[in-house]
């Protein structure tokens, strides 16, 4: 019902919009005729150039002033409304990709305009496309590019982009020419060079289309990055080929000699590398700029967009590859920008970029549809069109398979056959090809309309047909799924365990082979680039535990307040009867968590009304399967790559990582200490009393350092940041006894809660995790100086501010015997 209403609403708006648009265009024509005829005296149609007025017009119709802007805004609105309508029903979008539906909406809209105007007043103007719609999409792609994945597969990407595109262009052009010579196309006035030109514009895989289709089909990341990277980097080749053949067509066949061809080849290198260099230069500029924008945090995000756009335009101005430039600008600056800028600015950039990119993509597809409804361009030549579609499809397959077969011999993780099929099938053409086709000069190329028409048909074929069938194909080609019988619990658990196992084995055995370059690059980066491009404070944050500890305390405090507010108020603090239980009673909160799915586990739980809480406990009959599904940790492999247009899922994963990590480090510390002290590690898991459970969590909170750092770039550089902290592990686990994140040791109200029988009951968060941890025992630190006076409270409270040095050195010397070997030197981070 709701969809029906929405649909009718949309139709009305659409009709109004089209009516308005055609009315506007008609008015534009009539207005100009009116101004010629001279004076015109109505109050309605005054304004611009309507002749001298004779009386004060109260209201005037100022269409001329704002016609362009109005149309632009109106079109943007209409396109986005189309998207709204399409996304209303997810059943449809599961089968048909959104891009296809947008094109169809474009058909409808185009039909309306055509019906009103008898001529297509609106179409995808190449200027608008290349300068206003495309840059933000590319910038978004570059900024959210998973760098590690990208550079790992850079070889394959480059080979496909350069050689694959050249092969596509050459093969298509030559085959079409051959067919033309063979007479399959009837009477066409196209020469060999023009065929090659057509081939070159048709060859390029389009990043917009690839993103749009692959977004909804979650293929594995290597496959995606190869196709997507290829679609981005082939712009270098496309630009060169297009310009070279365009120039050749102008020069005419006779003047092409070896010199020109050599110049063509040279221009490729110049364009490609030049574009990349421009991008890198702008990336460095952005990074430097964000280093100094601390005082204007409010407009900090804007710089990224402006500079990104400038990089595009600069490359364009120098006739270099603009897409390459913007891509590398984004790729380079992402890390430093995220480090330098304030967190809210980073979020702003991320969301704004997605808005722009997604919005542009919508507009592009709608206009691709609209542009089709234009009688002028429809020149039908069966042979040409069908042969083009056929050749494009077939040569893509041939090219990809051949190249990948060669590449697989040198790859450590070969791409499977089925993946290759998807790679070939995913060679979608899109708006870039169309834009280039419209840019053709019709004086030189008589059959421009035919080419435009063909391009459009190829685009529709790939985006709509291949887009729709992509998902079924992906599913069909996979190993046939087992019958959807009830999966037993043990299977579920074991499956999950397999995932984790594989991740662990991959970690242990490492990314064999490219360690060397990666470690070299990392050294270079650490030594030269980071000091140059990153704010000193940001750099400090990167490798200094202290700031992390501070952030952890902040986070603890915030969780605490949230929890207090959820309970009503923080009034309990002064309430004697309330027990401020730092023992983190999850039992109560998790049930609530079930019911009202909160974001994070509070580190402190407040046992204010224990009776009522117990009553809320769910009955015994819990759906065990549901439980498993909800709570099994996702293994790292499942983390979705973050460059999907519409998904931002990060938070859950961080929490899981936190928990896992805490537990692991806790276990390690236990075994480490037991190894040192000769006490067997306790079987804490067997008798799992709640106390120990919470204690476990509490004691290892300090190790959240990695997680908060990971949280910023967990999606993309998990390997990177993790490896960077290898060195801190051994030392940190020893310092863990210091327990930096040891809860909210708020000096403000601790005195309230420290009754005189303090000595009997040491709060467990101060207690050292002794080998026999069934009994809560005070830590040496707590024993040495129990905080039972405000002064000491104060000292505890000062911990964040004071450096670790005083405490930890003391503690380390007190508590643990010096380690038998000196802590190993931090391994080169490339070992991850």
């Amino acid at each position, binding site marked *: 019902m709701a969809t029906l209403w929405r649909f009718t609403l949309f139709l009305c708006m659409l009709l109004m919009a089209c009516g308005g648009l055609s009315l506007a265009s008609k008015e534009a024509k009539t207005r100009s005729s009116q101004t010629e005829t001279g004076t015109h005296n109505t109050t309605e149609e005054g304004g611009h150039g309507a002749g001298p007025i004779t009386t004060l017009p109260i209201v005037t119709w100022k269409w001329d002033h704002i016609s362009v802007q109005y149309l632009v805004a109106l079109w943007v609105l209409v396109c986005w409304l189309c998207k709204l309508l399409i996304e209303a029903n997810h059943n449809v979008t599961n089968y048909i990709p959104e891009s296809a539906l947008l094109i169809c909406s474009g058909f409808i809209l185009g039909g309306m305009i055509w019906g009103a105007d008898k001529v297509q007043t609106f179409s995808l103007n190449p200027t608008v496309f290349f300068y206003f719609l495309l840059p933000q999409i590319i910038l978004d792609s570059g900024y959210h590019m998973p760098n590690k994945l990208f550079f790992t597969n850079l070889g394959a990407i480059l080979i496909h982009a350069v050689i694959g595109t050249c092969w596509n262009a050459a093969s298509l052009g030559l085959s079409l020419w051959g067919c033309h010579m063979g007479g399959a196309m009837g009477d066409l006035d196209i020469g060999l060079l023009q065929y090659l030109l057509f081939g070159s514009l048709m060859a390029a895989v389009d990043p917009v289309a690839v993103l749009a289709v692959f977004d909804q089909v979650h293929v594995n990341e290597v496959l995606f990055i190869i196709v997507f990277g290829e679609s981005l980097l082939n712009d270098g080749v496309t630009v060169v080929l297009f310009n070279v053949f365009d120039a050749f067509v102008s020069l005419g066949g006779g003047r092409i000699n070896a010199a020109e061809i050599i110049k063509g080849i040279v221009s490729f290198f110049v364009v490609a590398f030049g574009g990349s260099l421009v991008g890198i230069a702008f990336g460095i500029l952005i990074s430097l700029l964000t280093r100094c924008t601390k005082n204007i945090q409010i407009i900090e995000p804007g710089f990224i967009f402006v500079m990104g756009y400038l990089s595009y335009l600069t490359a364009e101005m120098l006739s270099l590859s603009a897409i390459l430039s913007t891509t590398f600008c984004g790729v380079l600056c992402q890390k430093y920008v995220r480090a330098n800028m304030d967190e809210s600015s980073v979020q702003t950039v991320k969301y704004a970029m997605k808005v722009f990119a997604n919005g542009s993509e919508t507009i592009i597809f709608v206009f691709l549809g609209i542009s089709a409804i234009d009688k002028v361009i429809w020149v039908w030549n069966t042979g040409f069109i069908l042969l083009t579609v056929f050749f494009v499809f077939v040569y893509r397959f041939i090219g990809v398979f051949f190249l990948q077969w060669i590449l697989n011999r040198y790859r*450590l*993780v070969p791409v499977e056959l089925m993946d290759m099929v998807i790679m070939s099938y995913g060679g979608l053409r899109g708006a870039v090809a169309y834009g280039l086709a419209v840019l053709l000069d019709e004086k030189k190329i008589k059959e421009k309309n035919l080419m435009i028409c063909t391009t459009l048909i190829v685009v529709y074929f790939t985006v709509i047909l291949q887009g729709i069938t992509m998902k079924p194909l992906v599913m069909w080609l996979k190993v046939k799924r*087992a*019958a959807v019988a009830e999966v*037993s*619990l*043990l*299977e579920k*658990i*074991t*499956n*999950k*365990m*397999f*995932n*984790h196992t*594989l*991740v*662990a084995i*991959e*970690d*242990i*055995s*490492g990314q*064999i082979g490219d*360690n060397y370059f990666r470690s070299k690059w990392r050294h270079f980066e650490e030594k030269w680039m980071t000091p140059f491009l990153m704010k000193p404070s940001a750099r400090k944050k990167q490798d200094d535990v202290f700031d992390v500890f501070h952030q952890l305390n902040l986070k603890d405090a915030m969780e605490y307040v949230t929890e207090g507010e959820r309970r009503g108020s923080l009034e309990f603090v002064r309430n004697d009867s309330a027990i401020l239980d730092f023992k983190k009673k*999850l039992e109560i909160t*998790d049930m609530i*968590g079930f019911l009202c799915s909160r974001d994070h*586990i509070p580190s402190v739980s407040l046992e204010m009304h224990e009776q009522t809480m117990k009553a809320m406990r769910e009955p015994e009959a819990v759906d*065990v399967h549901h*439980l*498993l599904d909800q*709570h099994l*940790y996702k*293994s*790292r492999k499942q983390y979705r790559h973050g460059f999907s247009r519409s998904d931002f899922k990060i938070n859950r994963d961080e*929490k899981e*990582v936190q*928990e*896992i*990590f805490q537990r*692991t480090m806790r*276990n*390690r510390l236990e075994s480490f200490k037991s190894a040192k002290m000769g006490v067997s590690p306790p079987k804490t*898991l*067997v008798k*799992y009393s709640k106390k120990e*459970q919470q204690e476990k969590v509490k004691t290892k909170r300090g190790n959240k350092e*990695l997680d908060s750092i990971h949280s910023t770039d967990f999606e993309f550089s998990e390997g990177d940041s*993790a*490896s960077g*902290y*290898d060195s801190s*592990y*051994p030392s940190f686990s020893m310092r863990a006894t210091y327990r930096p994140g040891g809860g909210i040791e708020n000096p403000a109200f601790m005195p309230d809660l420290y009754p005189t029988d303090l000595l009997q009951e040491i709060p467990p968060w101060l207690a050292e995790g002794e080998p026999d941890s069934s009994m809560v025992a005070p830590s040496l630190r707590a024993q040495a100086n129990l905080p039972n006076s405000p002064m000491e409270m104060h000292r505890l409270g000062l911990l964040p501010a004071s450096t670790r040095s005083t405490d930890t050195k003391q503690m380390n010397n007190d508590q643990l015997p010096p380690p038998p070997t000196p802590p*190993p030197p931090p*391994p080169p981070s490339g*070992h*991850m």
Partner: protein
Amino acid sequence: MGSSSSISSAHLLRLYDRFESLDRDNRGCLSPDDFEALGGLAMNPIGGRIMEAFFSSGQDTVDFSSFVRILAHFRPTDRNRNKEGAQQELPSSRTRKLKFAFQLYDMDRDGKISREELLQVLRAMLGLQVTEEQLQSIAERAIQEADLDKDDAISFDEFKKSLEKTDIDTKMSVSFLK
């Protein structure tokens, strides 16, 4: 070693490089510290168990041959060979993979997954929101489903049976260990 693991020499070489890079103090064998230095393992819920799988019975160092032997479990099963018999000896055969997985559960190596052991695994892999009672009920149910001879523990055969529909070969293979 060559016959038992049948890894190509190129891969062996790379594994050796990896072994050397992990072995930070160049003792020719790996100790738990070396594994612990891998950040990824710390973030893995069963990282500890995997680690222990490398340290066979009592020793606390892993030399290269053991390293490779364990990793060989994860080679993709060679599908060209379709004779079960020929495959039995290979570490990467389905049975051996299952055995490896079984041992990840069965820490005390008594040949059965007891309820306690299952609880331990569950505790490691499930989030902290899950209460003790819930864990117990999950373990209970899991054993019920898989336990055919009603001895309140899962033997290796029962384990194998309950996983017969699962595609072990892909789930427990790392493609670069061809």
